[in-house]
């Protein structure tokens, strides 16, 4: 006779305890950000879009070889300059559609020429804008610039 009543009251109590938790959280400050107005700074080694410091590149093809999704494209030609043979990049593009942002290219690069910057708002209106981004172009992410906070200074060494 008493057991059902006890169970009933314990059940009601358990619901009230649950409601205590939620009301406590109602008065605690929110943990989220008012996103487009306030932005969270990215961590130092956040892996965003692939970026390149062209002068530092020694055309070793390490990044091309390690890339698991073949998102990078590099070709070069040899030019003679002051009677010295010198390699010159003819094309260095990056396909953001294929990239899996694993950061392996950044790790293998012997001169830290290729790196992943801190851009995280990388949506564009057309897929074509992502298919072959010319890494040699210093203004390649210009259209994304104003959307991204604490972007690293363009550092041409």
């Amino acid at each position: 006779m008493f057991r059902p009543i006890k169970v009933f009251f314990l059940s009601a109590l358990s619901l009230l305890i649950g409601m205590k938790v939620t009301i406590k959280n109602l008065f605690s400050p929110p943990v989220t950000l008012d996103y487009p107005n306030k932005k969270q700074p990215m961590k130092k080694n956040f892996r965003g879009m692939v970026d390149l410091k062209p002068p530092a590149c020694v055309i070793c093809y390490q990044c091309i070889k390690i890339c698991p999704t073949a998102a990078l494209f590099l070709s070069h030609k040899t030019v003679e300059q002051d009677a010295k043979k010198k390699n010159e990049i003819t094309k260095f593009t990056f396909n953001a559609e294929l990239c899996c942002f694993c950061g392996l290219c950044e790790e293998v690069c012997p001169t830290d020429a290729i790196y992943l910057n801190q851009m995280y708002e990388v949506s564009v209106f057309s897929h074509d804008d992502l298919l072959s981004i010319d890494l040699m172009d210093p203004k390649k992410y210009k259209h994304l610039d104003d959307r991204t906070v604490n972007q690293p200074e363009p550092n041409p060494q």
Partner: protein
Amino acid sequence: MDLPHLVQKLNERIPGAVVEQQPSAVVIKRESLLPVAAFLKDTELSFANLHCVTAVDRKDKIEMVYHLYSFLHRWMLTLKVFLPNDDLTIESLCGLWRSADWLERETFDLFGVKFLHHPDLRRIMNPDEWTDYPLRKNFDRPDFIRLPQSEGLKAGG
């Protein structure tokens, strides 16, 4: 419990079942798969768990690989069966371990090994109307690209 010991036991119980003893696996004859499996499961060896069923395409044959586990002896046994390319059929282990059901369907889907007396042998991941077996080494379709190669890599790397 170790491998030579088990092979000896198997030879006593089911003569002629063991074809070959590899460093970490036992290869058995296709016809004796069911009796061997029943022996392994129901006797004191008590391989209660069929952990994994898969296959390896060795080009000249297809190798069925069964990973059996005994909670009692804490021992993982690798059982192999060689299937000739012209006759890819093998008895299903569904009657002994229910876990074989989906794992065998997967192997059927990816390698085209037919499991006899399987309750529900359909493709599990690929579309039903497919006729290819993607994990075979000779799998080739115009839209299948192993790894997109950078043209530049051929030139410079």
